[in-house]
């Protein structure tokens, strides 16, 4: 990061623009939640907007857009892969069961 002062000051505009976008997206996501989509669609929309916002924060505020260090990309990629496994696999136990299994002890 050997940006000259001018380079960095150029970013300021970008930062403000990103803030405006993020604020707008926040409003949109709240607004969208009042549309009474069916549940899967509502979840998809909300998560999609959140992902866009997160991407903006990561690329601009966290400087990933200008980041050339391969190590950071490597760590992010590795973490992303394991994150996906961690979040998805445990929930699969609700569907993949021995025949005849039910989720109640009583009845």
């Amino acid at each position, binding site marked *: 990061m050997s940006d000259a002062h001018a380079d960095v000051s150029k970013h300021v505009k970008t930062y403000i623009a990103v803030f405006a976008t993020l604020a707008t997206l926040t409003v949109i996501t709240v607004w969208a939640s009042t549309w009474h989509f069916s549940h899967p669609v509502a979840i998809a929309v909300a998560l999609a907007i959140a992902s866009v916002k997160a991407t903006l924060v990561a690329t601009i505020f966290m400087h990933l857009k200008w980041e050339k260090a391969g190590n950071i990309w490597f760590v992010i990629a590795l973490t992303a892969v394991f994150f996906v*496994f961690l979040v998805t696999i*445990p929930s699969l136990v609700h569907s993949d*069961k021995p025949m005849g299994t039910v989720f109640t*002890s009583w009845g």
Partner: protein
Amino acid sequence: MSGDHHHEPGFIRKYVFSVDHKVIGVQYGVTALCFLFLGFSLMMLMRWQLAYPGEEMPFIGNIFGEDAMPGGVMLPEFYNSLGAMHGTIMIFLGVVPLLVGAFGNYVMPLQIGAPDMAFPKLNMASYWVYLLGGIVMLCSFFVPGGAANSGWTSYPPLSNIATTGQTWWLFGMVCLITSSLLGSVNFIVTIIQLRVEGLTMFRLPYFVWAQLITSFLLLLAFPPLEAAGVLQLMDRLAGTSFFMPEGLVVSGVVQTQMSGGGSPLLWQHLFWFLAHPEVYVLILPAMGIVAEIIANNTRKPLWGYRAMIYSTIFLGFMSFIVWAHHMFMTGMGTKISAFFATTTMIISIPSVVILTALVISLYQGAIRFTVPMLFALAFLPMFAIGGLTGLPLGLPASDIHLHDTYYVIGHFHYVVAPGTIFAIFAGIYHWYPKVTGRTLNNALGYMHFFLSFVFINMVFMPMFWQGMAGVSRRLYDQTVYAHGDAVQSLTIMSSWGAWMLGLAQIPFIINFFISAVAGKKVSNNPWDATTLEWLAPSPPPHGNFETVPVVYRGPYEYSVPGASEDFHPQHVTTEA
């Protein structure tokens, strides 16, 4: 870069709150060895109850008080506490701190030619948080109801309804995990950033590679258990139901105070997401130590150095996606079990590659049977047994019979006890001269090795037969079952093996302390080794090297043809 422009720090800064990686390494090492012995002592107590159930413990039966051992006979709750704490102490307070905290801290920066770790203060914090975790764990023995007694796996709902000791256990674990996280960040940055000139990634000693991959496992696998620990603390302290379904009836009392809606399986997933990579945290640095010692004592480059590194990377990656093979019996269908059984079979291949590479490294070598080499050599067949017996447990069908039996205990103890702990001993004998400037006594060392080798097999080999017979693990008294009673003789044999193994450590303990002051003084490089740590003075001063070394070649250039010496250190400029 020499340390002479520093103010000489005071005693406290130098030996207690030190930021020097070597002092921290030694602190870790000594603390962890004490915990290792403590964990082993807990097991020696349990072995009495197992071998002679319900009989009064001789000599020391009365010192544990009426709450734990009335009339010298162990109570089941005390037995369960000992079991849970044996596992916890051995893994989290003994072996990992030794492999990573002690060897990693002391040896790794020296091997990469660094003056210290990248974040020395973080390093110090890591040790003190670890010690705090250890003290919390120890204190838990003295709270009402005793220490945690729901196994080292702490499966809820049992652990949720357990006595206060479990809360202490959780706080202790949060400390230990935090300590490991601080350590792992430090290790990765150090290895990537602080290597000296010329030391490319493929000139790194295998031990450093093992530490690097281990650190990634610590970094990414431990946080989920920290989260799970927080969730269990919430369950215990705030009355939530993360791991509790509705409609529980404990001892005839309907649990109406909790909302229900949780699942015990959630804990198991989060726990094993940590605990399977944890197995590789226990084994990879051990392989690293063994590889160093084998290369040095065969006087020959490691066979398949690159293949070993690629295998280790692959092993580390795969270790994150095999965790549910611990959970085949929890009501898993065919799809998830097929996925996890497949990944489990796949992960066995890189282990085979590494083991093969290490044994082929012996071929056409000139093997010196030094004490560290004997421990390192013993590691190979012991790890092979441990690894092979993992196969029947990794296949869901054969796991039906063997799951949660002594077979499992035998399997993972072969990996970590005669496996990893032998590697730890090998490392201690190997690097002791670097730390103290003196060698350990050889005669005591051989005695320690041979006795340990015989007795440790006497402890764990019978467990395979017990497991085959179907005896469940964690039984306070297996003779209540006909199939357990039939193999009680094996339990007695194991117990005697354990006690004899305890006695076999006496030569080591004597050797460890006496040699620090009275051992034979040696040069900086007593083993004629090639890696950078042997360039530094013994013991190395603050800042490690008198001049910053430069590296010209790979780590294991032994017996180079046409050279006058049979070793060619990494930092020597001249061609052989």
